[in-house]
């Protein structure tokens, strides 16, 4: 029985998800969202911060089992080519961590900050998570009976699927954006955009009704991240002439909107102007933030922290941020000092600085940071010696950080590190994921404030998996 319009729309969408019409129905999905919104504003503050490790992080060298048996499996594949990290206790060795639920693992030696956060139970690890359309095994993968994500091992497609959560089709919305669509009511009448990218345009951040904004990193003060420059002084324009130029600039934006791309261009500019006005006059007397490392991800996360600091001034209760660090596509030279270890050091130091900043602002329990990446990488090395690297894989390990995280533990199943083994697609050590991106994401979206009934609307395949909540969020 259909009780309300909203229920009807939800049921309709669920039926759609279950049916074969999904490929053509992805767009309708968002329409349903737009129609079915409603609810009261939130009273508390929450933010999700995505860090995308672009290129495909080698999770096999980021989190390594260090019990005798499995460490031997790891070194047997990676040591001879010079790709294995030393055991804990050795020079430059893995940093030992002991999950609450058992097991002995090591973090990459470049990540002492994340080890400390893990030990303090502010950081959790989700293991062997990846793009999936439905649960798979090696048997169903290899026999072709299991439905596979499109274009496995391809950067662009796998980046898109991690960001959209839709692995069997091209989606024009990301799960960050769709989550924001469903959470729009929580922000009440706040006009500041719910989703902010510090790393350019990202599919993750685009919803059906949600339009993210993109701003520069912390090297530009917030008040000047979106300037619109006047004629330079040397031009000899009077104030009246400058004002006349701006008035005409503004009035033109109201005209000639029938052309699709012209209007789309105008909409981006209009959004930028409105946001610029909102950021131009921050409240005075905001306390200084702790120092951030002067590196790409440090600058980005520092800007996120500064925006969070403005949450009350902007009247905003829910925010989603997108940051990105590149160069993880380590086909060769992975063990060089300036390669993988430098990237992980940057991730570790920047995430630690960001967590400290949330502590300083008293919002450490309200802000959850997590990593995404294109895919994991082959356990089997590509090349050897100084040139050693890794090729594109699939399932990967990821970090979740924050006061609301049930930290100090691993979630999901850890793959067997064996070529041609039970988790391998073939013979190179590409792990068939045992946890889907949607399961990982749904746990975060649930914490963010989405109702259980919203989850299948944002994550179309979630009901194919045993649980929609991995339990890593308190």
């Amino acid at each position, binding site marked *: 029985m259909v009780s309300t319009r909203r229920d009807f729309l939800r049921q309709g969408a669920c039926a759609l998800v279950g049916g074969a019409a999904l490929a053509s129905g992805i767009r309708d999905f968002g329409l349903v969202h737009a129609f079915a919104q409603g609810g009261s504003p939130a009273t508390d503050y929450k933010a999700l911060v995505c860090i995308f490790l672009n290129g495909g992080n080698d999770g096999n060298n980021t989190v390594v089992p260090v019990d005798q048996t499995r460490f031997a499996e790891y070194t047997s594949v990676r040591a001879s080519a010079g790709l294995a990290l030393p055991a804990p206790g050795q020079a430059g060795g893995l940093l030992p961590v002991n999950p609450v639920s058992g097991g002995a693992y090591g973090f990459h030696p470049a990540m002492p900050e994340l080890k400390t956060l893990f030990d303090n139970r502010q950081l959790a690890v989700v293991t062997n998570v990846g793009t999936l359309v439905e649960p798979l095994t090696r048997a169903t993968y290899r026999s072709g009976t299991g439905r596979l994500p499109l274009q496995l091992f391809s950067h662009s497609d796998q980046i898109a699927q991690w960001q959209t959560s839709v692995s069997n089709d091209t989606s*024009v919305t990301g799960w960050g954006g769709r989550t924001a669509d469903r959470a729009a009511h929580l922000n009440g009448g706040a006009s500041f955009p719910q989703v902010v990218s510090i790393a350019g345009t990202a599919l993750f951040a685009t919803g059906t009704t949600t339009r993210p904004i993109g701003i520069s990193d912390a090297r530009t003060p917030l008040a000047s991240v979106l300037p619109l420059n006047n004629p330079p002084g040397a031009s000899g324009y009077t104030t009246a002439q400058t004002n006349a130029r701006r008035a005409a600039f503004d009035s033109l934006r109201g005209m000639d909107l029938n052309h699709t*791309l012209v209007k789309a261009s105008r909409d981006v500019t209009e959004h930028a102007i409105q946001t610029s006005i909102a950021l131009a006059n921050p409240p005075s007397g905001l306390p200084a933030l702790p120092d951030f490392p002067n590196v790409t991800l440090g600058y980005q996360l520092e800007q996120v922290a500064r925006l969070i600091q403005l949450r009350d001034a902007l009247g905003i209760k829910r925010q989603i941020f997108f940051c990105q660090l590149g160069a993880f596509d380590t086909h060769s030279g992975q063990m060089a000092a300036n390669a993988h270890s430098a990237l992980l050091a940057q991730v570790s130091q920047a995430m630690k600085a960001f967590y400290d900043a949330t502590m300083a602002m008293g919002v450490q329990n309200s802000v959850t940071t997590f990593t995404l990446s294109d895919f994991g990488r082959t356990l089997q090395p590509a090349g050897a010696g100084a040139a050693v690297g890794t090729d594109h894989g699939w399932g990967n390990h990821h970090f979740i950080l924050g006061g609301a995280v049930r930290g100090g533990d691993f979630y999901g199943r850890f793959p067997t590190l064996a070529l041609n083994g039970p988790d391998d697609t073939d013979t190179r050590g590409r792990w068939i994921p045992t946890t889907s991106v949607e399961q990982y994401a749904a746990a975060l979206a649930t914490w963010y404030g989405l109702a259980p009934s919203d989850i299948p609307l944002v994550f179309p395949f979630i009901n194919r998996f045993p649980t929609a909540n991995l339990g890593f969020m308190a």
Partner: protein
Amino acid sequence: MIEPTPSRFRSAMRRLAFACALVCAAGAFSSTQAAPVILTETATTRAIAVDAVTKLRDPFPLNIPGHTVGANTRTRIMFFVLNLELLAGEGANALTAEAEDGAGRKYALPVENVMPVPGFGAVQQVIVRLSDDMGDVGDLLMRLNLHGVSSNRVRISVGHAGGGPPEDPGSVPAPAPATPPAATPTPTPNQYGPSSTTEADAVRFLEQASWGPTTAEVARVRASGLRAYLEQQFNQPLVTYPDYPLYPTDTALGCPSSTGQAVCLRDHYSMYPLQWKFFTLALDQRANSDQLRQRVSFALHQIFVVSGRDIPYAAWMSYYLQILDRRALGNFRDILQDITLNPAMGEYLNMRGNLRTNPNENYAREILQLFSIGTDELNLDGTPKLDAQGRRIPSYTQDTINNFARVFTGWNLAANKQTMINGALVNVFNYQDPMIVTREQNHDTAAKQLLNGVALPPNQSSSADLNAALDNIFNHPNVGPFIGRQLIQHLVTSNPSPAYVSRVARAFNNDCDALYTEDCTNVRGQMRAVVRAILLDPEARGDVKTDPNYGRLREPVQLITNVLRAFNATSDGVLASRTSASGGDLTNQLDQPLFLPTTVFSYYTPTYEVPGTGIQGPAFEILSTSTALRRANVVNTLLYNGVPVSQPNVPGGTQLNFTTFEQLASNPAQLIDALDALLMHRTLSQAARTAITNAVGSIPQTDANFARKRVQMAAYLIATSHQYQVQR
């Protein structure tokens, strides 16, 4: 597809044909191309449209009752259309249809069939399918687009009658003429000979075929005609990047600590010299400058990416860019060959030094996915082939990648070279000459399974395998539509009709029926034929394109060159005065850092869909809240500041010349006319003209430098307007 019998057509037409004297044929909508006219009732804009199955008038049900037609149950609607000037071979894939509901929501309606109505002269019937995401929307305004030209908008009702958008301003009924006009012969493509080119079309042509129209170049195009102009461009002597000296990878060796180290690093260990050269070439406004090659080459650079982020040596990159320039108007097979063996590419995508043990898959994957055929099997018109279940068909598998990875083994750098640095000869890696097979033992000699069932026998040499594999890729039927569509997107429009793509793909395939006679060479992959087919196509040409989805966002590099060329900039191409390799140049500010794309996927994705529009707009991927305002600020900098130069070791900067426009400044209407002609091919709306005129009027003639200030004011407002951001 629904194909009722001719007798039912005739009866439908008889029922619906209304006596009317009003002629709504060619000429009613001014353009070099006739706009299609959808027939309506006598006194309203309601379409004469019937359910294609039941032949009932609207309101139409959403789905076909008792559906029996194919997998999609949506209702098909038949319209009757005049002035539908289809080319030979064009069908439904040349048309797009779009409807708007009362809430302003737009729907793309798939066009499934178009054919003449027997016995009704030039009247054609067009069948469209209601879109999957449409509900009981009531009245809609609907239009057809052909070759970038839009029809009148007509009213239909879906679900129920009523509601719907208000009438378009100035819209009139378009009833069927009492006597249908005679069927016109199928138009042949315009030969674009001498004196056939209008000013507006010449401006549009130069936006597509050069780095931007100038008043002088518009006159030259009009004087020679498009076809002769293209021929002249094709035959320009090659102008390209110089042979920069190879430098050692060790910067301490190449630029030892001393005064001038920063300049040395800038000139040998950054993209700066290439950026400088790029703009110098792009801004060359002399007659017969090598513009078309530069424009096509830059499009190729965005398809076959080597990024200076990973290859930060000016010399290495210069030898790569030389290939794109040299081959841009040559043959596609040569492009594949040369880029595959180029050492910068070999370094960037890990083909160099690839061994038979654990061969790296990177180049194998990208040459298939990005450089040639893409991930899905394509029809000739660029649409994906579908299997019986309606799913896309992958054009290769991981296994194919593994096989190609084994092909690309055994190659490495040719013998070292020497460069004179500070008076001493230094050994340097050879990133100039093509890679060679240094040790045949490094090549995987097992048999390999390639595309389309082609297998390479075992025990072939590295070269034999590589040549056969590149032939295999080159001959895949995807290449024409896959590469052709992207080139159209880079030069002309982001959403070409499949029919347009198919014409360009046929040019690639050397289908002589689709070619200009001079291109019928019996050679596949001729880039001149492809470029000619792109630029002379009816979908590219014309004074004004009224299809609301037509055009492409000016990418940042192009925005800069278009503004500079319009104002006769004198420039050495250096757009930021820098003494070191760091420091943001203007392209970097706009997220298109020249020669430094973030990844092998270039600055933006060819298939990027503009949020909320349902259509593609690749360069929108880098139009963010930040860059939208920076585009205005870059225009502000260019028009008001130029790029001053005051330091040693930097070139002469960039300055604009407004003289010809300043002469019109005392008459704002004339000034705006002139700018409208050159920048907007006379599409500026009356409302926009008024707003700009008012702003210009704020600068009185008594003001010092009023002429320059007025030109700058008007130019800024046009070049920052959303209307100008889209090349169309």
